[in-house]
């Protein structure tokens, strides 16, 4: 089986400081990988390098494109990478306002992604948008409201609808449940898990919440100071951590 994403020796430096370095892994179709680590560990830098938002200083990020197989997205031309960003990839930001157009209606936010890949028929765009709002549990009668009138949890669900409407194969998520109430988090996790299974998505989720990765991720990568210190099956890394830092991380979680 060809990996969907093949990451080899990726590094990003901010001057003399290390953003992330020497990161390599393969992600296969249908796999969900979590990246955990404390603030400043380089997990968001890595995610942005993988998603083409930052240009890594070294290494290759190969994606299994529909037409040409594995291609290095780092050396790819900008228009091609942008096309991937609109079709095969999706990026869910921690703050929904970074991923939404706040002055456009909810329906417009979802429809815009469809139009970016060539949909033109107003009626069918609106139908698809309505269908997706339903899937992320937003009432159809809110379709013409702007996201500014939505709660934080609703904005996050709208962002997910906007991202998944074009049927991507790989979703990057940066703290998707950060800043939400625990009850809203649970709902979002349930939704994400359902979508991942139904659509056969692969996902890379950056978070500092170990409970989130336990429920969502198949595999886990632990980062510290820009380095990957441990990788493995999620439950194995959390229940039998090998590295000193991972042991500290796991034992620091407050029990409810």
């Amino acid at each position: 089986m060809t990996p969907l994403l093949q990451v080899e020796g990726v590094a990003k430096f901010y001057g003399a400081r290390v953003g992330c370095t020497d990161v390599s892994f393969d992600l296969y179709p249908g796999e969900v990988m979590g990246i955990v680590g404390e603030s400043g560990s380089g997990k968001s830098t890595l995610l942005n390098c993988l998603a083409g938002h930052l240009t890594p200083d070294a290494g290759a990020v190969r994606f299994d494109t529909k037409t040409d197989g594995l291609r290095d997205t780092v050396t790819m031309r900008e228009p091609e990478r942008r096309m991937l960003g609109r079709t095969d990839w999706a990026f869910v930001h921690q703050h929904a306002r970074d991923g939404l157009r706040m002055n456009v209606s909810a329906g417009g936010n979802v429809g815009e992604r469809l139009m970016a890949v060539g949909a033109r028929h107003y009626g069918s765009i609106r139908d698809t948008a309505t269908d997706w709002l339903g899937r992320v549990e937003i009432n159809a009668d809110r379709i013409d409201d702007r996201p500014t009138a939505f709660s934080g949890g609703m904005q996050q669900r709208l962002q997910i609808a906007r991202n998944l409407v074009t049927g991507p194969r790989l979703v990057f998520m940066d703290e998707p449940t950060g800043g939400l109430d625990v009850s809203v988090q649970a709902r979002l996790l349930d939704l994400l898990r359902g979508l991942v299974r139904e659509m056969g998505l692969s996902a890379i989720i950056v978070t500092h919440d170990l409970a989130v990765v336990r429920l969502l991720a198949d595999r886990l990568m632990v980062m510290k100071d820009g380095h990957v210190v441990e990788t493995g099956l999620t439950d194995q890394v959390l229940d039998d951590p090998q590295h000193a830092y991972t042991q500290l991380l796991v034992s620091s979680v407050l029990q409810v």
Partner: protein
Amino acid sequence: MIQVENLSKSFTLHNQGGTVIPVMEGAAFDVAAGECVGLIGASGAGKSTLMRMLYGNYLAASGHVRIGGVDVATAEPREILALRRETLGYVSQFLRVVPRVSTLDVVAEPLLRTGHALDAAQARARELLARLNIPERLWGLSPTTFSGGEQQRVNIARGFAYDYPALLLDEPTASLDATNREVVLTLIEDAKARGAAIVGIFHDEAARDRVCDRVIDAAAFTPGMAA
């Protein structure tokens, strides 16, 4: 079906002075298809550790665990995930689920993951929940709010929904009343009859005597405890 070879394990506690605790040494046994093997030994002998190593939840220090053509001790996460999806089931003592997901969906999930149709998966889930005497009015609710015994039975229903060729059972009859205990023992006997290889921990001696073909004393693999 399950072959354990020279398996060893130690825990290194980096944040507690680097203490190394050897917990297992030279574990070796086979379990054939249709056979049920009970793990015995006092508390702390390493029964649960061994089970967790068979499931890939704990990392082996050395040795091999061969289940259905995969060496769990050395396999890639992807291979272990596929093994857990299609070959190796595990009924633990604790139910861990996404909040808000209904009991019926929790039980049907192993079937949906292996490509069974929704109708068939839910029909099987209903049948198991009914057999395990979970009241039908609870099926649409999340099991997170259930009593300990109910959660245990949901866990068992989930573990037996799909016909795994190999099964690990951690105290499947603990905290069950006589009626439900009988249902679980029948489920285990049925699984053996269809050819499943089973490793179980049973503190309930009568249950162990009934379903286990033989027992293995985990203390034999515990450094410093072997006679």
